[in-house]
């Protein structure tokens, strides 16, 4: 039955249904959960940027936290200085990060594995200190950036957090749709071919270098949007928000969810939200240093365990399981 509907339309329907579910959910849970929902939405976009890069072209970036910073700052600057509307600032975030990503991507196209990882690591370490340096970027305090008050016609019961969630969720749904569309397009197929075997792809007439630059640029665009969304949840753009830890965190989300799967990004984003909650529960009553450091330990342990036990991430494990179950049913 479902197969009668063309695929792009099916995706649209799924996304629309998700939107309805989100709206209904946001009305039923408490304020803090709504706020967490907005954070999850930002993480989903950030993880998708990694999935596109790592899962679709086999490149590893430790600098996507810094690309998120580029997006966040671009968006905040046009809102603060030029008073552009919020939704345009999202596009500015995408374009700003994509522009930087294109430059990185040109270097990345010639690098593989650890070289790219190390170079993007240097980028991630270096960039926040530049932001600190310039007064136009607000120094350590950063620049304010938020979604503004909800429109009056939504009524008094429509809270600020709910408005934040609506905006983040909407942007994320659009981003997920675009990512799925890209992965199914000609480009997605080209990237997968390059990932599987560079030499074979080159022999088949694919310009491998150009394809790598393109994937890095698009991935950076997603990171930029994620940076803007992430900034709205903390109401400002500041160097401290985009530490090396953020780069690691979104990489963790991608690895745990499964670097090949866009849906895995959603699993990954939930895990990222859950980690600090688990850490909080575990460290209740313990000293402050335990409480502050436990999330990092859990994150690291999840990373190591995932690559050791289930290199494909949870999404791949689910895939194996469902295949195994289906196989049994059929026989």
């Amino acid at each position, binding site marked *: 039955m479902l197969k009668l509907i063309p695929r792009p339309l099916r995706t649209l329907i799924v996304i629309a249904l998700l939107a309805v579910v989100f709206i209904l959910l946001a009305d039923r849970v408490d304020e803090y959960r709504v706020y967490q929902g907005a954070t999850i939405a930002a993480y989903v976009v950030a993880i998708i940027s990694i999935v596109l890069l790592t899962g679709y072209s086999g490149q590893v970036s430790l600098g996507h936290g810094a690309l998120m910073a580029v997006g966040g700052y671009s968006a905040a600057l046009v809102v603060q200085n030029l008073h552009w509307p919020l939704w345009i600032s999202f596009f500015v975030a995408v374009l700003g990060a994509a522009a930087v990503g294109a430059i990185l991507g040109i270097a990345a196209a010639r690098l593989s594995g650890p070289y790219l990882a190390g170079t993007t690591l240097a980028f991630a370490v270096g960039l926040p200190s530049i932001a600190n340096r310039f007064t136009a970027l607000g120094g350590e305090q950063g620049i304010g950036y938020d979604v503004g008050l909800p429109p009056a016609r939504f009524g008094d019961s429509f809270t600020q957090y709910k408005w934040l969630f609506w905006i983040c969720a909407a942007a994320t749904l659009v981003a997920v749709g675009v990512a799925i569309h890209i992965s199914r397009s000609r480009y997605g197929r080209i990237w997968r071919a390059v990932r599987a075997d560079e030499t074979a792809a080159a022999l088949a007439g694919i310009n491998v270098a150009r394809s790598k630059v393109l994937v890095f640029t698009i991935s950076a665009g997603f990171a930029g949007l994620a940076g803007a969304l992430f900034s709205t949840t903390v109401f400002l753009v500041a160097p401290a928000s985009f530490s*090396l830890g953020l780069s690691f965190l979104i990489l963790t989300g991608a*690895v745990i969810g499964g670097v090949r799967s866009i849906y895995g990004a959603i699993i990954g984003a939930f895990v990222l939200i859950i980690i600090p909650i688990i850490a909080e529960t575990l460290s209740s009553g313990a000293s402050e*240093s335990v409480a502050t450091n436990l999330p990092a330990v859990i994150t690291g342990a999840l990373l*190591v365990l995932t690559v050791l036990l289930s290199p494909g991430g949870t999404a791949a494990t689910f895939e194996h399981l469902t295949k195994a179950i289906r196989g049994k049913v059929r026989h």
Partner: protein
Amino acid sequence: MQQFIDTLILGVSFGAIYALMALALILVWRSTRVVNFAQAGQAVLSTYIGLEIHRLTSSYWIALIVAVIAGGIVGGLVDLLMVRPLSRHSGTGPEAAVAPVIGTLGLLAIVQGVVGIFWGGEFRKYPAAFSTDAISIGGSRIPFSPFDIFIVAIVLAVMVAFGFIFQRTGLGLAMRAAAFGSEVAQLAGVRTGRVRTVGWSFAGSAGALAGVLITPNVFLAPNSLDLLLVFGFTAAVIGGLESMVGGALGGLALGLGLAIVLQYLGSSFTFMAAFVVLIVVLLVRPQGLLGKKGARRA
């Protein structure tokens, strides 16, 4: 002019430490084809251990030796407990390519977190072996302290010792053979797994020494050596990542270069400078200063 020379002198001892970190990364890369991002965490752990020993014994030297040995043990354990199982189920696809990077990053997070739990997040001072005050010769101050002299001397000694081990001993020959031709080495009877673990131990010790040497001039915190890792990686890449001599020269070049950037552009730019140097080296001369062509994409 005088100021410029002073700037260069300032860069020498930092350059020596970057060279040491580069050595640690190169040792692991050559034997395992993994850039060990966890090295920053391992070095922090051993430096805290050194600090603890210093508190107990108030001896700089005992602390130094214990830290270096601890670094070696931790390095070997990392190979045995994580890297070996990881390379055993090496598959294909993006997961296999990124698994070592992810694994060592995860370990970095674990080690830094555990260090934070035990020692807290506040900045600590690590003692220096000698005075860190500038020397004055004939009334003019040279921005080089007795401790800087010690740093350069001990790094040189370590480099010479590694050079001797690698070029003149059976263990060194086995290590080079295992790194450059694992299959032939195995057929010749080299127990390549063990040899590799020894390489990880050496690297751990070199990284531990780098940590102990740099902390008196900066400070110690769970993530305070991330920059040392980045600079060490940059130095290693400048040298070609395969060559220990290259890594030493790369460290020195980077130390001098960053000192110049620090002096004339300010500290905010030193971090970005490492990134720019990496990009330029990798684009212009991807095989590094001493590397051979075509060895870069492995």
